[in-house]
């Protein structure tokens, strides 16, 4: 396949030409080495366990906590949501796509019970000691999606539609029924409440996105353990196939108040998993996000922060994974979450490099970066498949169109902060 392409198309003159040629050959932005494969699969597994909590709690907040004025216990997920069966995996799944169980992962349940300390204590103590899954990372991702309004036009347009406002109004009034003070406040400041509901819709959006991704990553880990993946491209192809398998699944926002369900965004609104959740998520979280407080001092007057939101480049693809030392910033918290669930082979691997156990957080952060380049590659290949032509298309013009598409994607990774060149070598740890 690759021979045909290179024989008919001249080499790309792009600064990332090597990567583009690899993508044209059906590969990933991440070089195909056994070490890379081991790292990305290992980190997918470590990511999947906290993600299994993230999606449950995001939906719990969106659907149950809703507009609680002081949501102090929004991270104390109810049993119902902890036991909630995944839609895409498990025996009771209405649309089983992946083979794993539908219940919360056993490692997650064990961690929630005992925490890092390994001692059973009241959940509040675990929480206050930060011996828990850190939802702050998930919320930061959600806010990035919510804030970058231009990346999700259909979903955002719906958030400002009359149908949405009417449904949200109904839910707000039902939620605060009998609470005249808050209803009075709602009368005075309706937009404030409406904006909160919109944010909660993004909680639901991200929760539903990750409900898909968690079993995908679990299954990839299982397949790798069984010797199923031979190359990085195999892992990427699995993701591409997964994306297409659930691309059309609905994104919705239901709120449960008492026994009643309020469909703020009904499934019939036509919001789909790929276009209204996955792609905006990749754009918001992998590329843009926001400058996390504490990771770097930005001087807006010196134009260190772009004037246009579309120019933001603080996502994982650009991130300098080394924290400055401000504990508690979201990326650091994700690393902390993943640290608890590293597979043994990855732990052993980290022991061999840099400072071993002492800087596992950094090493796994860089592995995570590698893995997200692989996920982004899957998204790019999926988009290419959806919008352009097959890689082995015999028409040179079609292949040229594919080339242009890949080059446009790589243009976004030409700025100095991008880690694309770093991940091409194993030395970047």
């Amino acid at each position, binding site marked *: 396949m690759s021979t045909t392409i290179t024989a008919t198309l001249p080499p790309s003159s792009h600064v990332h030409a090597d990567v583009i040629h690899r993508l044209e050959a059906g590969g990933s932005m991440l070089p195909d080495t056994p070490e890379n494969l081991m790292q990305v699969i290992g980190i997918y597994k470590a990511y999947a366990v906290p993600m299994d909590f993230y999606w449950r709690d995001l939906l719990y907040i969106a659907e149950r906590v809703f507009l609680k004025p002081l949501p102090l216990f929004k991270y104390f997920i109810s049993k119902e949501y902890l036991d909630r069966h995944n839609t895409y995996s498990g025996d009771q799944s209405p649309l089983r796509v992946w083979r794993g169980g539908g219940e919360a992962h056993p490692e997650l349940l064990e961690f929630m019970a005992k925490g890092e300390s390994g001692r059973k204590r009241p959940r509040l103590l675990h929480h206050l000691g930060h011996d828990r899954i850190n939802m702050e990372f998930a919320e930061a991702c959600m806010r990035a999606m919510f804030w970058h309004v231009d990346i999700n036009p259909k979903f955002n347009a719906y958030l400002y539609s009359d149908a949405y406002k009417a449904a949200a109004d109904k839910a707000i009034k039902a939620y605060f029924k009998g609470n005249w003070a808050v209803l009075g406040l709602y009368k005075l400041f309706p937009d404030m409440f409406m904006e909160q509901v919109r944010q909660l819709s993004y909680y639901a959006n991200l929760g539903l996105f990750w409900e898909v991704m968690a079993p995908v990553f679990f299954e990839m880990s299982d397949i790798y353990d069984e010797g199923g993946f031979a190359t990085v491209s195999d892992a990427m192809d699995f993701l591409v196939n997964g994306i297409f398998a659930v691309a059309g699944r609905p994104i919705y926002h239901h709120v449960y108040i008492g026994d009643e369900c309020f469909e703020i965004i009904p499934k019939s609104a036509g919001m789909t998993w790929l276009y209204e959740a996955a792609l905006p998520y990749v754009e918001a979280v992998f590329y843009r996000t926001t400058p996390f407080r504490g990771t770097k001092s930005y001087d807006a007057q010196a134009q260190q922060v772009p004037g246009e939101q579309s120019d933001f480049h603080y996502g994982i693809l650009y991130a*300098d*994974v*080394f924290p*400055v030392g401000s504990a508690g910033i979201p990326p650091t918290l994700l690393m902390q979450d993943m640290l608890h669930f590293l597979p043994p082979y990855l732990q052993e691997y980290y022991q061999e490099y840099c400072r071993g156990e002492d800087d596992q957080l950094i090493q796994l952060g860089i592995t995570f970066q590698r893995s997200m380049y692989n996920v982004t590659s899957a998204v790019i290949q999926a988009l290419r498949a959806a919008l352009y032509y097959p890689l082995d298309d015999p028409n040179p013009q079609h292949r040229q169109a594919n080339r242009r598409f890949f080059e446009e994607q790589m243009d976004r990774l030409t700025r100095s902060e991008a880690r694309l060149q770093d991940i091409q070598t194993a030395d*970047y740890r």
Partner: protein
Amino acid sequence: MMLTLLMGLPLLGALALLLFPPAKAKLVALWGAGIPLLWTLWLFSQFDISNSQFQWSEAGAWLPVLGLNYELGMDGLGLLMVALNTLLTWIAIYSARSEIERPRLFYSLMLITSSVISGSFIAQNFLLFFLFYEACLIPLYLLINIWGGEKRSYAATKFLIYTAISGALILISGFGLLWLGGAEDFSYAALADNSLSLKWQVLLLVPLAIGFGIKVPMVPLHTWLPDTYVAASTPVAILLGGVLAKLGTYGLLRFGLSLLPDGWAVVAPWIATWAAITIIYCAFLAIVQQDLKRMVAYSSVSHMGYVLLGSAAGNNLSLSGCIAQMMAHGLVLAILFHLVGVIEAKVGSRDLDQLNGLMNPVRGLPFVSAMLVLGAMASAGIPGLVNFAAEFAVFQGSYRVFPLQTLVGIVGTGLTAVYFVILLNRTCFGRLDSKRAYFPKVSFNEKAPALVLAVLIVVLGVQPNWLMRWSEPTEVKTVVIVPGEHNVSLRDIGGLLLGDSSL
């Protein structure tokens, strides 16, 4: 024998190194430096603080024809300097890299250096002092030339030439003291009992001040120092900056102030002005440096200016501050050089443009950075740390006599804060560059010297009396009356030298 032992123990250590394999050299050297340190601590316990005279005096004829006798003794000033020397020798040896080449020779030379420096501080005979003073040159020349970094040969030769000139000038003054003062030999007591006129005192002070001014060093005689400190390996730099520079100020106090008090009173305003210029000039030089070690080196010269300012004022308070500042300078410079050495070893660079984010808790050097912050704060004279009490006493003592020079010196402390903020900002703070940040971990052995010094910097800062009390009798003995109206012009001094004694 107590003081002979103090000198002899490091020499025994140097000899013992020959008996052990190279792999054990560091351990043996640590014992060779550790026993004299313990011995010094024992001397502290035996020191009679109410006695202003030299204690544990030892005397023996050596070459009476030359006026050279083996005479040793120790007062509060000598005790503190010896303590600084033995402590920093141990720290310097501890901070040496374990994989150093030719370890037995290296540690032997370190111990010999320490021994002769101790000898300088406890000598009671000018010629004996001079012998020790000059004897330092040989091991230090070898230490710089063999184990130094880039441009080590150049730096070692420059050091040798400058210090040889320094020695020659000091020797001229010494002979002047003997011949013109009517002393029978070079013993301090005999030299002190001189009948030199004011003119001759001033005349002898000039080469003495220049000679020791090279050693301190003072602007513009300082140009050997940055090259030497930068080229020297970390342990040698600790000895050079922490101890050897003190030989200069010690010499000025011991010979200039004590033996030529009337002359000192005349030239004191000029020495104070010289000190103020050194403080400011080297602080500005430190600000513009790109090399971490060079910045610390210039900081060292600048801070030695405070010692000179205190000694110029010559009153109890300023002398107390001056001696305390010598100790404080030694401790702070040692911790800074040690930390710079660790940073260089781990990061592979001392360039401020390349260092960044070392405070990073996971991949950086957080302990080293924290200690660097402490060292910088101490050097900048932050209250609660050892330099504060010393500099405060210097300023309070010298302001009465030299207000203008003192104010300039105070501005110098502000400039210290400026260049250390630059240093910390570029080195410790900011974002760690992920392309470079694969530094090895800092081991406990690398942390230990900094910990010991940090504890001393804090403890002596909180309780400076534990430092200053030892030298009080010496200060009382040394105080000179510097003219209250310090309007002595160069013309006055010139007139004095030409026979006008109207001053």
